[in-house]
Every structure is written in structure tokens, then in C-alpha cells.
């Protein structure tokens, strides 16, 4: 094993060195330019001060240029004041983006760093377009989606250049270095998590964050509605969005920015449930595909009959995990040997299939920090399948 490990380490070193030779890496000019463009608040750096001196005209501005500059600055300040007085876009939710028009294109001043997440959800969802500003950051809720089982939202963040933290004046903008904090709260003590994105409604049901991702200034989040939502009804939600650095926040402490609150109302769409109730046996283990929840937000296959033993076996679908968000792809235990498995994509109409490739598990391990350089010992168990299920998905 140690020979294998050494070979793997050498191969990784070789791949890394040949793909990105160390002597060809020079990030400093680009990093210096970026941090110079956005200096830290407080004490000015010596280099930044030197640069300011370099850029300042030595002879001073001619009077006419000075007057012109004064007018331009005044107009900019006036514009910013008018914008602040008018407040962010906060009207009632609009339904459906105009065809071909990207979401979030009407956000007033500022530029976004990234595009909303890919996939069908942004187009299936309702355009919201609410923005909130605090702590030098602006968060915009671009779209939201709700069906009987899940709620999903799409956001983007912007840093407001020139804004003092806590004031929120909008005198320009740039990409945010903070991002909505997404934590899987389906297991464990939620109170031990740093501040993270949550959604609530008037019923007080405990929505869990079961999927999502961040990147490029955009983020999406998928919540499950454990008690379900009534199809066809209008439902009011409140979304809470704390921002954190990539390293995450600290439990019990204020987030790096926010939290930002959004109140909005959505029509609840159907999430077709296909009752399959089909059995398949391999190696004496009979699994049952009970149903498929074909929600565009988080399509799930509910598989039962997984043996309950000390290895805490869990089922894994074929091809699962490849390009899915890790939060979404993790099997979710429903109890009594039943698991809910993310399928990545809705099954749609017609003939469909679901295949459980294997059962895999490890025994209970101490869920605590280990001493540095030491790890626990586990003996995993794998039972290979596959258990295949084929079924018809009826049309609407």
C-alpha cells in the first residue's frame, strides 16, 4: 500500500509540475493589480499611497478642468443619493422572465460578476428581482421556485465599491468576495453551524437546505419542504441570506455581511410522484423502488429494503455523483431501510429506469476532531448490485 501511495504521490507531483510548471507561475502582477484596485479599508498601503502620488498631476488641474470635474462628481453623488432615497427594487414578484431576456438585467447601478445557475429552474421559476444592501454588499434574489416538495432560489451578490461597511451607500460596485453560506442542515445540530441560508414560511415548517452551490457571484439553493406545500396555492416565504467568506463563518457569530431578508410569494407547482412499487433481488437482498418524486428542483428515487446493520449501508445509484452538487447527491435516510436518492435530472415522460449500483457503508466512527496526524480506523462494506427498475412515467 505504501508503494502504491508513493507512486500516486509521484504521479500527482508529475501531473501538477508538467501541467503547471512552477517556474512559469507568476501571479503577483495580477494579484497586485487587483488588490491595488480594491485597497483594504483603514490604513492605506505604502504602495497605494505612492501610486496616488504618481497619478496626481504635479502642476494641479487648470480651473476649467477643475470646474468640469466638480460638476461630474456632483452629478454622480446626486445620482447615488436619488438611488438610495428610491430604495432597491422591492415590488411584488413578477411572473416569468421575458423570453430570451437574462435574469437580473434590470438591477440598476453596478455589474454582476456571474450568470445565474444553469439548468431549467431559473426559467421554471418566478422572477423576483429584489435587492438588499448592507455592510457594503448587495444581494439580489433573482428567481424563486416552489413545488409540492421543494423550494429553490437563485441569487447573486455584489460588493459596493466605496461603500463604508454598514452604510450601504451605492457609489459603484464590483464582484463580491463573499458568498451566501450554504450548509447541509439535514443532519446534526443546526445550532452548531455557522450562519447559513434559510427559508421559512408562516406555517413554521422546518425547511432543510438539501442542495445548491455558489460561484462567480451567483448562488442557488434548494430546500425541501418536509410537510409539503399545497399545489396551486400562493405561498409566502421569507429567505434569510448571510454572506461568508469561502472559508465559512463561525457558529454563533455574526456573518461577514447581512443577513439579508427577502419576502416573496410563489405559486406552488406540482411535483409529480410516480408510484412504482417494483422489487428487484440481488444476492438475497430485495430492494423496492417505491416511488419517484419528479420535482425539477430535486428529482428523487425512494428506495426501500436496504438492510439495517452495523455498517449503516446506504444505496448508491448508478452514475451518481458525477456532475451533481455534492449536497444534492448524498443519499438521504428516511428510516425503516428507506432512502431518498437524488437522480440529478427529472425522469420526464415515457419509459424510464432507475438502477441502484451498490450498497455501501461504514460503521459508526467518532464524530469529533482527531488529534493532529491521527485518524480513526474503519472497515467499510460493499454489496454490489445492480438492482434495476423500469417503469412508465405517465404524461400530464
Amino acid at each position, binding site marked *: 500500500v505504501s508503494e*502504491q501511495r508513493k507512486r500516486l504521490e509521484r*504521479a500527482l507531483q508529475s501531473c501538477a509540475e508538467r501541467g503547471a510548471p512552477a517556474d512559469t507561475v507568476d501571479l503577483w502582477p495580477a494579484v497586485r493589480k487587483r488588490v491595488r484596485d480594491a485597497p483594504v479599508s483603514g490604513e492605506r*498601503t505604502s504602495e497605494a499611497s505612492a501610486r496616488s502620488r504618481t497619478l496626481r498631476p504635479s502642476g494641479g488641474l487648470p480651473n476649467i478642468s477643475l470646474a468640469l470635474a466638480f460638476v461630474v462628481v456632483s452629478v454622480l453623488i446626486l445620482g447615488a443619493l436619488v438611488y438610495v432615497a428610491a430604495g432597491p427594487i422591492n415590488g411584488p414578484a413578477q411572473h416569468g422572465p421575458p423570453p430570451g431576456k437574462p435574469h437580473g438585467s434590470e438591477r440598476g447601478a453596478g455589474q454582476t460578476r456571474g450568470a445565474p445557475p444553469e439548468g431549467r429552474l431559473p426559467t421554471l421559476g418566478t422572477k423576483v428581482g429584489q435587492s438588499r444592501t448592507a455592510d457594503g454588499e448587495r444581494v439580489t434574489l433573482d428567481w424563486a421556485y416552489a413545488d409540492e416538495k421543494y423550494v429553490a432560489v437563485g441569487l447573486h451578490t455584489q460588493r459596493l465599491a466605496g461603500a463604508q461597511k454598514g452604510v450601504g451607500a451605492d457609489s459603484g460596485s464590483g464582484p463580491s*468576495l463573499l458568498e451566501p453560506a450554504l450548509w447541509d442542515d439535514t443532519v446534526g445540530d443546526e445550532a452548531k453551524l455557522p450562519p447559513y441560508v434559510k427559508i421559512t414560511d408562516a406555517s413554521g415548517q422546518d425547511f432543510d437546505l438539501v442542495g445548491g452551490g455558489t460561484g462567480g457571484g451567483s448562488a442557488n439553493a434548494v430546500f425541501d419542504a418536509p410537510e409539503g406545500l399545497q399545489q396551486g396555492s400562493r405561498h409566502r416565504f421569507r429567505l434569510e441570506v448571510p454572506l461568508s467568506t469561502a472559508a465559512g463563518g463561525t457558529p454563533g457569530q455574526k456573518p461577514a455581511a447581512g443577513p439579508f431578508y427577502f419576502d416573496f410569494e410563489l405559486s406552488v407547482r406540482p411535483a409529480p410522484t410516480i408510484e412504482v412499487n417494483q422489487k428487484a433481488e440481488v444476492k438475497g437482498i430485495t430492494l423496492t423502488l417505491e416511488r419517484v418524486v419528479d420535482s425539477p428542483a430535486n428529482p428523487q428515487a425512494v428506495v426501500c429494503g436496504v438492510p439495517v446493520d452495523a455498517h449503516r449501508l446506504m444505496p448508491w445509484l448508478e452514475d451518481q455523483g458525477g456532475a451533481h452538487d455534492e449536497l444534492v447527491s448524498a443519499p438521504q435516510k428516511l428510516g425503516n431501510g428507506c432512502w431518498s436518492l437524488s437522480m440529478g435530472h427529472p425522469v420526464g415522460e415515457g419509459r424510464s429506469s432507475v438502477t441502484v449500483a451498490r450498497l455501501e457503508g461504514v460503521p459508526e466512527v467518532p464524530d469529533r476532531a482527531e488529534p493532529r496526524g491521527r485518524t480513526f480506523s474503519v472497515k467499510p462494506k460493499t454489496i454490489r448490485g445492480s438492482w434495476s427498475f423500469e417503469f412508465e412515467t405517465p404524461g400530464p
Partner: protein
Amino acid sequence: MEERSAIERLKRGDIGGLEVLVRRYQARAVQAAYLIVRDRSLAEDVAQNAFVRAYNGIGRFDAERPFGPWFMRVVVNDAVKTAARRERTLPLDRDNAPASWLMDPEAGPQELAEAAETSRRVWTALQKLPPAQRAVVVQRYYLGMSEAEMAQDEGTPPGTIGWRLHAARKALSRMLRPWSRAQAAPATRRLPSSESSDYAPEGGKERE
């Protein structure tokens, strides 16, 4: 010592402190990101962003802690997100073009037979892992981080990290096994059996 001094300088707003950290960690950061995102230019973006994040977040960084593991975790986390985004829009089977360095025309016969072949197989196997598993392999076997270091700050229990690493190692082992056996055949040393090569528990000690 130089690193602590650089962090202190940076905390005081001296950009020279950042330059020391960039010069010290840039190659490692770009290479680690490259192994995860599999694109040199994206890897440089990831590393560059991580340095800017470090610059902006240095006020909250505890100077008593080592900078390297914290910074590399930021790099790896960003690389995973970048890779996941990329692979959502670019399926893996569309990303089969070999990296140019795999076709190194300057490589001699011996090098082609050994190092290049090893690299090619590991590179190909790594591509088939999901980004999060790729990341734990890179953290463990390229950056040499312990599981405790990998779990720190991430809010992930060591058990989860261990499980992720186990799954990654197992998948890699499965993909590399035919080649490993062929490599081992002429040698006197025998590789462990297929079962034990998947996982080798050692009670209370660091694995392997």
C-alpha cells in the same frame, strides 16, 4: 518566521507582506487547483482569487495559525466549485482531450514508458472522480494534509472527510488496478490483494 512577519505586515496594510505569501504559495496553489479543475488558466484564476480573498480576509485570520493549510483549503474549495460548475456544462466525456504535456515530444523512451504512462493513467483516473473526491485526493496525496487538517475550518466532521477519501481511494484503486498489477508483475514486491488494496485500516494510526 518570514511567513508570520509577512502576515503581520499584511495585517498592517503593507502589500509587501502579500507579495511574500504569493511568491511562497503560488506554484503550489496553481498546481493543486490544476489537478482539480484540469485547466491551467482556470487554475490560475482560482489561485489568484484565493490570494485576493486572503488579502481581504487577513484581518480575521489568526496569525497564530499556519497560513499554508488555511490558504490551501480556500484554494481547494474554490477549485471544487469551479470544477463542478465547469463539469455541469461540459460533461466529462466531452473533456477527453489529453493535456498537451501528456504528448511531450521531448520525452525520452524511458520517460515515456514510466513517468509519462504513470502520469497519464493517474490523470485519466482522476478525471473520472467527482470534483469533491478529486479534491480530497489532492489534499491528501499532493498537499500531504492530514484528515484533521482537511476537516478543519470546513465544518465537515473528520468522519465525512474519511468517508470521502475512502470513496475516492477506492474508485482510484479500481481504475488503476489492472495497470498496478501489470506494473507489479516483474517486480519481486507483490501488491496487496484487490480487497486490501481498496482500503487498509490501521487502528489508531495514520492510514497507510
